[in-house]
């Protein structure tokens, strides 16, 4: 484990450290202690090591990966890929191809999902070793602004002195006291991803992206899925014109979508969980579900870290306050990822991790993106970055919105997936692209161009003049930009004609 040779910051020393590990005196010192091995923590650790710093990475699992790889992005996307295939196979009937009812081997599906996770996390473990990062499996707590105590998974407790620490402990599913029922039938996202079986029916509590993605998986595998959402629409916060496309499709995939409805109570009954709902004006209603998935959000893991022994500040929601360099109020301690604030997304965490590591290595950098993309991996996918309609309306700022509905896209038509829309939010004065929103098949891949456009301060002209390959869905970006100037070749707008 993390045995350091020296507390000095010179890069030459850190090279020596590798050799010292073998025999000499172990002082349990490290230059950089990274707490949490998710996509924020491991990227921070790798970058710090690549910059010549001596790094100790601490995580509860045997390998780095965090929620993203073990219980989040990666396993859910493996399952969503399967869901997509099942839906497309069914869809193929429209084109004269019938496969018949699929036979689903849940055990094999799970084994494949597990192998995906193992391949990724094992790979990260290997990369950790190659970088000579000391990996400690355990739970760390701050004793002081320069010292940690680690309860090791293998048993035993040890102390580790550090020059800098990067806190990357992530988040966990929110637990609502009113929705707490100790029952194997009540799942959180972690439990749902374990995919023990395919229940006949399931209630998803919370119409956010996690609930909708996992609901899609189960619905595609054959479960009758109902969704209950407290607010008036699915995916609160996302632009309504994008959500409309998804809502339309989900209304056929899902059994029932209850909006403006709260769950009053959960009660274990003989063959399921009895759920009591309360609608906006309705009286209470009930339903019995074989499984209930609670996906009402995530909260940062900032408790029990010994932060009270440091000057780091935790706000009312549990986020640790950081500056542009991701430094907490305690100068030796940095915080990145979910624990450092919204949006709680892996790719934001990774970039913050790089910034924190570079700052520690003495580089003059800051975390100041113009756009952090968000992707909902439902079918159709929804993706956006930069300014949204919702935000523009809230700030009362004037924007021009250029839309290109996929009904006019050749590629979307060949896929029989015209249920999509690409829109650009454009500054009317400069023509600059301030935000991009996409709903449709593969929107998650398409949004990257939008992020680049926003970051590069591209003008609508730039997108319109950039030749996009035909026939692809990416052309919708170019066509939306053309629509901004009046007329796109494939979209006839009578009022401008």
């Amino acid at each position, binding site marked *: 484990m993390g045995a350091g040779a020296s507390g000095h910051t010179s890069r030459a020393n850190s090279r020596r450290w590798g050799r010292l590990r073998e025999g000499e005196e172990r002082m349990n010192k490290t230059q950089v202690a990274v707490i949490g091995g998710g996509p924020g923590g491991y990227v921070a650790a790798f970058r710090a090591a690549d910059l010549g710093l001596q790094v100790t990475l601490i995580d509860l699992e045997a390998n780095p990966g965090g929620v993203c790889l073990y219980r989040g992005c990666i396993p859910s996307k493996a399952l969503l890929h399967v869901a997509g295939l099942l839906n497309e196979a069914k869809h193929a009937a429209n084109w004269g191809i019938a496969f018949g009812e699929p036979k689903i081997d849940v055990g094999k599906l799970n084994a494949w999902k597990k192998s995906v996770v193992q391949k990724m996390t094992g790979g990260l473990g290997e990369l950790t070793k190659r970088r000579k990062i000391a990996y400690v499996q355990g739970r760390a707590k701050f004793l002081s602004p320069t010292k940690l105590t680690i309860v090791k998974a293998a048993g035993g407790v040890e102390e580790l002195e550090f020059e800098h620490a990067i806190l990357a402990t992530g988040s966990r599913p929110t637990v609502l006291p009113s929705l707490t029922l100790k029952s194997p039938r009540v799942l959180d996202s972690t439990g749902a991803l374990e995919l023990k079986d395919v229940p006949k029916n399931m209630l998803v509590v919370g119409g956010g992206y996690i609930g909708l993605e996992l609901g899609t998986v189960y619905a595609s595998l054959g479960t009758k899925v109902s969704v209950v959402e407290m607010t008036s629409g699915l995916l609160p916060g996302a632009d309504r014109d994008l959500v409309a496309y998804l809502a339309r499709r989900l209304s056929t995939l899902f059994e029932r979508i209850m909006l403006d409805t709260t769950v009053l109570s959960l009660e274990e009954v003989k063959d399921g969980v009895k759920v009591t709902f309360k609608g906006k004006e309705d009286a209470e209603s009930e339903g019995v579900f074989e499984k209930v998935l609670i996906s009402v959000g995530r909260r940062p893991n900032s408790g029990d870290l010994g932060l009270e022994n440091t*000057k780091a*500040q935790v*706000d009312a929601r549990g986020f640790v*306050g*950081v*500056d*542009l360099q991701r*430094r*907490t*109020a305690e100068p030796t301690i940095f915080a990145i990822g979910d624990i450092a*604030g*919204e949006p709680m997304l892996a790719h934001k965490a990774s970039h913050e991790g790089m910034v924190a590591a570079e700052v520690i290595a003495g*580089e*003059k*950098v*800051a*975390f*100041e*993106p*113009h756009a952090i993309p968000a992707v909902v991996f439902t079918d159709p996918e929804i993706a956006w970055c*930069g300014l949204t309609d919702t935000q523009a309306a809230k700030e009362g700022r004037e924007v021009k919105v250029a839309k290109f509905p996929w009904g006019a896209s050749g590629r979307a038509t060949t896929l029989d997936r015209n249920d999509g829309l690409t829109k650009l939010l454009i*500054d009317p004065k*400069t*023509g*600059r692209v*301030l935000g991009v929103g996409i709903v449709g098949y593969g929107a998650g891949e398409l949004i990257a161009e939008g992020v680049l456009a*926003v*970051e*590069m*301060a591209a*003008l609508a*002209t*730039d997108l319109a003049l950039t030749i996009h390959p035909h026939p692809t869905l990416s052309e919708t970006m170019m066509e939306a930009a053309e629509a901004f100037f009046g007329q796109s070749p494939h979209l006839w707008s009578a009022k401008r004609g």
Partner: protein
Amino acid sequence: MATEVKLPDLGENIESGQVVNVFVLEGETIAADQPMIEIETDKATIEVPSSVGGKVTKVHVKASEKVKVGQVILTVEERAEAPPKEARPEEPPRKEEPAPPKAGEKGPPSPKEEPAPVAPAEKPKMPEPAAAARVGEPIPAAPSVRRLAREIGIDIAKVPGTGPGRRISEEDVKSYSRRVNAEQEAAGPSFAGVRAEKLPDFAKWGAVEREAMSNIRRKTAEHLAYCWATVPHVHQFDKADITDLEAWRKRVSPKVEKAGGKLTITAIALKIVASALKAFPQFNSSVDMESNEIIRKKFISIGVAVDTDRGLLVPVIRDVDRKSLVELSVELTQVSEKARSKKLTLEDMQGRTFTISNLGGIGGTNFTPVVNAPEVAILGIARGAFEPVYDKERGEFKARLMLPLSLGYDHRVIDGADGARFLRWVVEAFEDPLLMIL
């Protein structure tokens, strides 16, 4: 009705201060104009009264917190039906909304100002989240360009973009940087070779404790560093034989005491220096290097350094040349008392043309006082002591009470010979005060 009582405009361009004391408690009933907090501004401690009376439902600030003008200090529940008993009947039962009093020309307080933080005062501030730092338009520059600017220390927001949509290119950043450098060079080289030195880690050698500077300490540090760095100092020393003066002082002291003052050497020095400043007007001037002008002041107001338990304060005695020695003694006694009991206002410390620093009460044979810019000279007084002085006529040594004096002056406006002449003049006036009315 709940009213938010805000920190009013305190005048003198004061924008903020540090809370020293909170005089009211939640749940307490206060009268309008009752002091609610005491705050320390750059050089004065001020008691701030509440603009309204009623029951305090919330105190938004704590001692040692920084407060800004316009910030909410208290929430007070005003009782319209039962006016406080002090209220005079002809007054309307409810006072004005405590909208920033006298904010007038400064306009309403900025809406961005947040309500007083409720977080414990001793904890450090939560760093600003990145998102909050970006308001309005994102800077139209590629990530690589933004990073370059940060690396070379250029504020990207200040770089004019030449591209379409005012996009900032790498070349824009570089040319802006070149321009800034060129401007700096044209402005002349700054102090070459002067760099901030990093403090060592004292904790390596023993326990240390860090304490925030008080406002007074910080201002003193900044101001004196400025004085020392910008004023070319010369110090001239001399001694005055005050044997006869001291005998006289003791004799007339009771008379002055009756008037409510103390006839001290400092009071006498005030009188002497005022006369000296009339004889040597360049010592009562300031220098304006921007316009290359000497500003001669037609008034004589002398600051007197007072040692208080909160640090050095320098109250001003105005129009010294027009006041009698008794008047000066009384005023000096009052103002020193005011300084020690934290009652000095900023106004009490502004507008001086010369400073006297008397350390004689403590001791020392002499010292080199720092010119209190924008003044150009300062008189230091150390402790008088009996010394053998050779009397040439009688051919013998005599014990005489000698008062060590030092004159610090700004060599930009005062030549060495004038410095010597000024101090000689002062010494002779101490030895033979009648010379002043000659």
